């Protein structure tokens, strides 16, 4: 009988026992979470270790790169295009009320390259690739394919996790560049063609307020997002519960956990990089308005 079941059984013997049971359950829950984090950390260290321990085979690496990068490109491009247009729609009325509609380019492009492009690309990757990776590896676990690999003396982390990890790590910046580009394009097309904002003012203001640091800051963050998506998703797949329900839960958890981690990482990286920007620009932030 599990501890939690024992704890449940002791319920109903008085208020003191009930509190003791709740505290014991909370303690067990916390221990499970800590053990889970430790498990992911060991899994991550093993993955990094295998990157350097043995060179990846081309025929293993390329299919992963194709799945992660090439097949994600259309969906990332499309969402980037629309998010750029949505930004133009949402910002225009506010800026026009202040007579600053010519600065629309600055706010759209700054939001895109610093925040929306990287987070959008990472979210699309977590949804499209992360869940698929967890489901694929989960199915391999359930159908004993991972055991078969181990029983042949091949390391499953080297064969199954490292190619996916490298694919996410290397290709998410390129997907972000695509999301940024399409977002900038969408924002401009909507602003120029439908809102009638002048080409010259739109781009002059953009150039003035968006610099290389903003773009590189966005790209830098994506390496962390890519690594988090790959490690969380592969870990979920490797530790999948038996049956179709287990595989489904692994795929869902892979997306939910990756998405939460992307947002948490985005916050802390944003704070850290803002402080770094203060060092390079001691004169303070440029004023948009």
């Amino acid at each position: 009988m599990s501890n939690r079941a024992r704890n449940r059984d002791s319920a109903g013997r008085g208020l003191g026992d009930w509190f003791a049971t709740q505290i014991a359950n909370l303690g067990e829950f916390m221990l499970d979470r800590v053990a889970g984090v430790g498990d992911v950390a060991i899994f991550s260290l093993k993955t990094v270790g295998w990157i350097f321990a043995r060179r990846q085979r081309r025929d293993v690496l390329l299919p992963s790169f194709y799945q992660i990068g090439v097949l994600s490109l259309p969906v990332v491009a499309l969402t980037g295009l629309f998010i750029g247009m949505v930004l133009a729609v949402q910002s225009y009325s506010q800026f026009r009320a202040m007579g600053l509609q010519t600065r629309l380019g600055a706010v759209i492009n700054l939001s895109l390259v610093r925040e929306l492009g990287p987070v959008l690309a990472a979210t699309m990757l977590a949804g499209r690739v992360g869940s698929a990776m967890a489901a694929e590896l989960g199915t391999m676990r359930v159908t004993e394919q991972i055991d078969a690999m181990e029983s042949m003396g091949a390391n499953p982390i080297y064969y199954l996790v490292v190619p996916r990890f490298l694919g996410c790590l290397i290709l998410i910046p390129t997907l972000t560049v695509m999301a940024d580009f399409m977002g900038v394009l969408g924002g401009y097309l909507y602003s120029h063609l439908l809102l009638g904002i002048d080409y010259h003012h739109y781009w002059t203001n953009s150039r003035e307020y968006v610099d290389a640091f903003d773009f590189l800051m966005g790209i830098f963050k994506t390496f962390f997002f890519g690594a988090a998506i790959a490690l969380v998703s592969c870990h979920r797949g490797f530790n999948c519960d038996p049956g179709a329900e287990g595989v489904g839960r692994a795929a869902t958890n892979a997306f939910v956990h990756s998405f939460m981690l992307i947002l948490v990482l985005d916050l802390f990286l944003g704070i850290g990089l803002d402080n770094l920007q203060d060092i390079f620009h001691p004169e303070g932030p440029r004023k948009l308005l």
Partner: protein
Amino acid sequence: MPAPAKAIRRDISDPPVIEIQNLSMRFGDHQVLRDISLVLPAGQTLVVIGESGCGKTVLLKAMNGLLRPTLGEVRFEGIPLARMNEHELARIRTRYGFVFQGAALFDSLTIADNIAFPLREHTRLSAAEISDIVESLLGEVGLPQSVATMKPMQLSGGMRKRAGLARALALDPHLILYDEPTTGLDPIMSDVINELILRARSRDGVTSVVVTHDMHTARKVADVILMLYPLSRLPPGEPQVIFQGTPHDLDNCSDPRIRQFIEGQAGTRLSELKDEQARDQAQSTPPTPEHSQHTEDET
């Protein structure tokens, strides 16, 4: 039809291929194996039988280190598996072949790539040499060359099992482990697999362990049969191995538990299952105040 005479090549100077001492396996609160000991000399075929859930597959996976024992030791050719690190374990596993219950072929690879996988991983053979070996292994298990380019999902269950056997044979293993090799197959295909197990054993006196509940397979391929009994139904203190001997000894055994299994008779099992279910329900239902009062009155 009687089983064909088996040519068993043994060398008494060889250490046992598998030696298990006091093996116990526990998953959380659930104990599956308790105090199992066995010695398997080179060239022999051991068949492990027993009811579902008695720990046969767990025993098989402990034999090649896929599962680490909770207590006890497993030695392969005299080397204790528990003391090996991951790298050493990976190297020694090249001397094993493992045929999984569902074949466990890699879905994303073709049959040829599946069979070639251990060769690419552990040898420096050229692509042409690997291709030749794959071709010969396909022939050995009776699969047409046309399946080489197919994916596992395009094959029938029997073909997948044979492809799994071909992959297990690729590195010329010393020991082949079969997990339920005939489960889910028609009687003819089951016998084809039995013949292939016998044929695989004739390759340099390969040692085999076959986990099955198919008594036809057990009688046909076994030198020694070992029967496990589920711990949940075993009285405390009784050994979990309730039979170890030749197929002939098994047929002459009078133990009602063994007779019930080999004759495939439910006997009182259905009523036992209902009792177990009722007991589980009683344990999972929290006692009501009336019940508690009643119990106190009784005491």
